[in-house]
Structures are given as C-alpha cells and as structure tokens.
C-alpha cells in the first residue's frame, strides 16, 4: 500500500499543494489530471524526493518513506516530463549504466535490461545510440529505465505528452504490464488514453484534489466526460 498523507508544498508565499492525500494499492494505476499549474509535476517531484514538502508524509509499508529516502528510492521508478538521457550512449549501455548505478548486482544487470527493453518494446534499438532515437522512443527508453528494477511505485510525469497515436497505444500496453507489479501514478492531459488503463482519476486543482473519479470497469467515454467536467468545474 502506498499512501500519500496531507502533502503541502509552497514556494515562498505561493501554495502549490494543500493537504493532498490519496492511497494507491499494489497493481493499481491512477491518473492525476488537472490544468497547467495545478501542481501535478510538483506532487510527483515531492513523491520522488526531488522536492521537500512543507508538511505531510508518504507511507509505505507502514513507515514514513520520506524519512528514509535511500531505502524508499530503491523501490521507486521515476520518469520526468522530458526524458533526459546520455545521448552518446547506446540504449543498452545506458540501461546497464542505470541498473548498475541503482545498485543492481552485475550478474543480474543483463537480465534486467533484457526484461525492460522487452517490456518497453525497444529490443531492436538496444544497440542504437540514444541521439538517433525519436522523442517517443527516448520516452520509452526513459520508461525502461524507470521500470528497470521492477519498482513498487512508478511515477510517470506527463508520460503521454508529445507521443503520436501509435506510441500512445504502445505506452498504454506498457503501463498495463507494469501495473501488474507496481503502484503506478501518472500525470497528464491525455484523459482518453489514460482512461484505458487507469483505475481512478484524481483531479488536481489549485493544489487540492477536487474530485476522485473511478475508472475501472466504467464506460470510458463517460469517465472521460466526467473527468473533463470535473476539471472545468474546478476551474470555474
């Protein structure tokens, strides 16, 4: 169980997040949506220990994960908004480097990289230098990096942005696969695509979760419509 409790964050006098709380069960994928500036990226940065919350906690295995960041980060996969990779490396070399950096034993690195590249459908690009890849493929490499060590919590920031239709379809399949072993939290604006694999939508507005819309088993069009209305309602 991954629980976010009363997370607040502010820059000087400007409140970005106010008492944000939610729970993500293992195998669940939730989508956090909202307008630009709603605090989605900041929330994920706080959860990825890249920013320090003003108050609140993240509970994992009944312990405050933020107080033991190193242990927490070992169980975390994080993909930032823009995939920033080492362009001079090949996909395989990059993933091997990242696996080693994250502390994976040498003998298991090759298998982990193989699994991740298969999961993200980039096996044929393994020996391709990263600088030659398209934006979408780079995102897949970054995703492969995030899922490399089978994290228990996967944080994907605006993952679908900038991807064409085919890529978005592929991404949906990948996330569905990953959700089998991780709690997935995805932010973005592509509600229709997210509705295909999201179990719940959290609508973030002004730093507060204004609505929670279940998506599992519901009619996707209705879910999309309700989420869009919730965003508009929150705005008005």
């Amino acid at each position, binding site marked *: 169980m991954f629980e976010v409790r009363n997370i*607040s964050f502010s820059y000087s006098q400007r409140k970005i997040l106010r008492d944000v709380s939610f729970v993500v069960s293992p195998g669940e994928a939730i989508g956090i949506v909202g307008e630009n500036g709603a605090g989605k990226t900041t929330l994920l940065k706080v959860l990825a220990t890249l920013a320090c919350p003003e108050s609140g906690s993240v509970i994992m295995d009944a312990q405050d994960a933020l107080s033991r960041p190193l242990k927490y980060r070992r169980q975390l996969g994080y993909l*930032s908004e823009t995939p920033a990779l080492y362009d001079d490396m090949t996909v395989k070399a990059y993933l091997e480097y990242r696996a080693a950096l994250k502390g994976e034993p040498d003998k298991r690195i090759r298998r982990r990289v193989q699994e991740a590249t298969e999961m993200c459908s980039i096996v044929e690009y393994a020996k391709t230098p990263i600088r030659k890849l398209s934006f979408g493929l780079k995102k897949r490499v970054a995703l492969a990096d995030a899922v490399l060590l089978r994290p228990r919590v996967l944080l994907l920031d605006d993952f679908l942005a900038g991807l064409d239709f085919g890529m978005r379809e592929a991404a949906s399949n990948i996330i569905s696969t990953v959700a089998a072993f991780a709690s997935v939290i995805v932010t973005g604006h592509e509600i229709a695509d997210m509705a295909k694999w999201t179990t719940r939508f959290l609508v973030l507005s002004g730093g507060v979760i204004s609505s929670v819309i279940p998506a599992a088993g519901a009619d996707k069009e209705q879910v999309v419509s309700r989420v869009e209305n919730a965003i508009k309602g929150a705005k008005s």
Partner: protein
Amino acid sequence: MSATTITMKRTVGMVRSLYSTVLSFSVFLSAAALLFSFALDAGEGGETSLAAIWTSAVSPLLPILAAFIGMDVWSEERRTGRIEALLSAPVREREYTLGKFLGVWATVLAAIILFLVSSVAALAILAPSALTGSTLVKFIPGLFALALQSALWCAVALAASAAFKHSAAAALTAIAATVAVPRGIWFALMAWSGQDKFSYGEMPLDAHAFDMANGLFSTGVILSYAILAVFALFLASKFTAALRLGGRGAKSLRWSTATAIAIAAALALSLVSLAGRLDFSFVLPFGGKDGQTFTQRTQSILAETRGEIDITAFLSRKDVRFRPLSHFLRALAKESEMLGGARIAVSYVDPHWDVGAAERLVRAGASEDTLVFERGRRRAIVNLSDGFDERACSSAILRVALPPQRRAVCWTHGHGEISFEAYGAWGMSDIARDIARDGYRNERIDLASQEPVPDDCALIIVAGPKNDFSRAEAGKLDAYLRKGGRLLLLLHSLDAPGIASIMSGWGIRASQTAFPGERTLSGSDVIVSDFSSHPVSAPLENSQVVLEKPFVFSPSAAVGQGGGADRIDFAPLASVAGSCVAAVTERGVRAGDDLAIRPTRIIAVGDAAFAMNGRLAENANANKDFFLNCVAFLAGTDAMGAASAGKNKLVSGMDRHARLEFVVATSIAIPGVFFLVALSCVAFKRRRA
C-alpha cells in the same frame, strides 16, 4: 561496482566526448609547452633541476584546465534535466560527488602525463643533453605535487559546477576561486603590507610545486591541500543535495545546510592551521635535485648553531635567481629545524617594491643582489654575484654564529708566491674571498722581517714559492710550527732546499714523477679521484680534483720518530696511480697526553696552481672544496665540504635555432596534431552515433 566507480567511469566517458575537452587539452599542452620553453631558457646553466622547471611550467595552468574540464560535470546534468534521473536513484550525493571528482581528476592527470611524455620526447630528440642524469623517476615528486594541487582544483571546479546551471559561470567561478582570488590576495599583500614587515617570497602555490618537485616535502602543505580538497568536495556534495531543497518546507534544511557548510569551513581552516603548526619536512631521495640538498659541512654548521638567524634576500623578484634562491633558503630553514639548530627566519626585500626595507639594508652596508645574515647585532653580507653557493651560505651562518673574532690566514710573500690579492687568472683572489667568507681575514706575512707571526694566525699558506726561503725565514716558520702552528704548502718547485728541509723535518719528502696514461683534461694535468678517508678528503669521494704535473710525497725519516706528543704521523690525502699527490702530517696529541698541546699540522699539495682563479673557473671540479677543506682542517674548524659545484647544472645544449624548433615542436606541432587527432576521434564517434 559501487555507484562512485560507475559515476567516475561515466564522467570520464562524458568528458572525453566533449569538444571543449579536446580544445582544453590542446590549449593546455600548448601553453604549458610555451611556459616550459621559457623556463628552460631562463634556467640554462643554472642549478634548477629539469623536473622542477617542468613542474613549475605546468602548475599555474592546472586550475584553469581543471575549471574547463570540470565545468560541465554537474552543470550539464542540471541544464539537460538528467539531474532528476540521478537524484531519484538510490545513490547518495557524496557518492556522485566523489565519482565525478575522480573522473575529472583522472582526466586532468591524463593531460599532465600527456604533456610529460610529449615534452620529454621533444627534449630527447632536440636537446638530449638536458636529459642527462634525469630519469623519469626524478619527475615523480613533481607529478605528485601536480596531482595534489590538481585534486584541489578539480574539487573546487566540481563545487562550482554543482552551484551553477551554466557551464561558463561554473568555469569562471572556479577560475576566480583558484587563480584570481589567491593571486589577488597575494598581490594585495605585496602592495599594501608595511614596507618594513614585507617578507614574502614566492606565491605559495608556485613555491609548493617547485619545492616538491625538488623532493622537499612538507606534511603541513600536503595535509592542507588534502583538507581543502575534502572541504571543496563536501561543498559540492551539499550544493547537489541543496537541489532537493526547493520550496518553503525546506527552509530549515537550507539553514542547516548553510550552517553545516560554515562549520565545515571553520573546521577546514582550523585543520589547515593545525597542519601548519604540526608541520615537518622531509626530502625524498629521488627528488629532482638528487635528493641530497645539503652537504655534511652545512649540516654540521646548522646543527651546532643555536638561537635565531635572520636571512634577508635583497634582490628583485623578477631576477632569474630568485626562485632557486628562495627554494634554497626555505630548504635551509627546514633543514636547520630538522637538525635542531638555529631558527632561521627568511625574508625577502625587493629593491623596487620595498623601498623602506631596501634603504635600511643599504644603510647597513648591503647592496642589491646580496644575502644578509643577521644574528643579534652581528651581520654577514654575501654577494650573490660572486658565485653564490651553499658553502658561501653556510660560511656566512658560521660567521654570524661564531664568537666575534676574526683570525688571520697568513700568506707568505717575497719568494714568487701566487698572490691572494691578484684578481687575474694567475691570482688566488677567489679562494681568498671564500676564506674571508669563512670568517678569516687574509693577511700577508713577511717571514724575513723582525715582526713575529701574529698570535691569532690560524694558519700560514705558502702558495707555490719559486724562490727558496732563507735560513732565517725557514727558522721562523719552523719555530711557528713547533708551537702548534699550521701550514698549507702548495709546492711549485723542488729547487728550494730551505723549503725541502722544513718539509722533511715535519715528515714529508717530495719527489717528481710522471703519470703516463692517467686521465687528463689538457694533456699536462691529471685527474685525481682517489681520496683517502682522512677528514679533509673523505667528503670529496666521487669528486675530481685536477692537478697540474703534481709532485708526489712520501714519509720522510722524521715520521714515527719520538713518542707521545712529539711523534709525527703521515697520511696521504689524494693519490694518482698509487702515488700520493697531497699529504698531511701531524705532530699531535695522543690518548693520555696533555690536551693543552695544540697539534702541529702541515698539508702539502703537489701543485700550486690548482686553486688559482683561472683553474677554478675552467673546470667544474672539487679543487675549491679541497683547498677550503685543507684550510678548515688546519684552522681547526673541521667543517668539511663536499664538492658540488657544477654537478646539478642544467645544460640543454640547444642553440637559438634548436630552441626555436623546440618551441615550435612542443607548443604548436604536438598540440596541433593532438587537436586534429582527438577532434577527428570525437567527431567520428559522434557521427557514428
């Protein structure tokens, strides 16, 4: 593999593939080669070692190289956004910092090694004589110094890179911190310090590299560099960790980080200060200057001297002699400290900068280009233009340390002797000046007059008489010797029955022989390298004395006659092909005898011309040391020196054309070729990618 090792490898890979690295390397190679060429030119004929010149050429460029190599390592991660992927991984900031530091350091060390290889290769081709006696082992202390300094510069560059998102800002900050600020403080101290208190020598960063390249190490200096490097790495780690501390919630953490940095800075400064206090120096045996810095004579003088001695170097900092001199004086002060001798305080007075202090020295009788030795109210001035060397310096210390009396060295005249007052090639003014430096006054003595030998006569020198002594003169000399007198006899001719009789009476018989087949420089001289273990000649082991057609000596019938204090002993000092060419006889004190009896000592050398000005100037040999050792032994000082003149002289053997070729090869051709090859490699790698 640990995260540190992985990060180090990635950093090396990242830095290696940058065009800026190729450019930095090439500019570094070119600039270092230029500095090295200029320094080599200035050091020609001097005693500064090749390794020290090489190290000094590289040292000032390292902060700039480190700044340019290290500017991207964190800034690039921040600018591209890769920092988020790094910080979200389960790795501590200090592991990243250490890994990146090792990567940058390894790259800078590779540049240093590359320059060493290229410059030594160029020297081997264009100036092989400069490498004579220099093995790569002698560069090790210099390489250590550069590695130590570059560790600090790389750590500072890393901290700057962690602090700034833009590489240029990081590089400029690093250069400001490692070049502009230290040198600015230095120049400010030079400009604003009180004129009478000004005592700084070289810029310490340059002096450290030079000293260590010469094998002179100081724990305080080494620890200071290490402590400051660790502090800079701590700073870099904290700057990286601070990237997580955005937002109001981290206000207290930001404060605690700032407090930790302040405490660490205070701790680092305290430790540096403590390291300075607990400083002790040591000399590596394979230093750039053959390790052995001081002769036994200097060491014994230093060990026996107590109290405080102030040495003021009165010369311009722009003078080419300044650096080796300041190194020498620092080494001297440390040597004295190690031997438990006098505390030597060294200060520098630049006649152009320190007008007040210069005026004080001029009033005290010193002129520009002098060293002033002061102890209490006693003062000795050594002119640097008169062939300054270690012996002159130790003699000056001896003069200010000994009780204030100047005994006389009396030179006989009137028999065609070589004059100690003659400055030409046939005179002995140079050796007389050295005797004066040792604290004696040179005096002429007329044995034919009614005047007695002065009471404070330390010894009599008979320097190559062409005419014989009269009976009265011989009698007066004999009477002097019988009272425990000392005689240095330089033989010129055997056609002098009076002199032969004196010698014979005191145990020495002279004869003439030829030395066919012996080593020679001009055909008529012989090279003497076989020295006995007598205190006069033992320090000259491995040296060469050149004598012109020397006479040989053997014990006369007087040797071994009598008993107790009247017994005369004969000992050879130097030999050629088994024949003794310099000998000493002594009628002295035996165990159980009356210690108040001053032993008579006579040294005879089979050549009178060996210590003449012309001979001393011609050959880099041990003639001067041999002569002065004789004087010291006869006068009773017993502080012997070893010949070192000329041993460490740097001779590149390059003429003007060869120098130009060297400059072009090392500062244009080699960096140019490197630039083209490295650029092609990087471009090819990128294109393939």
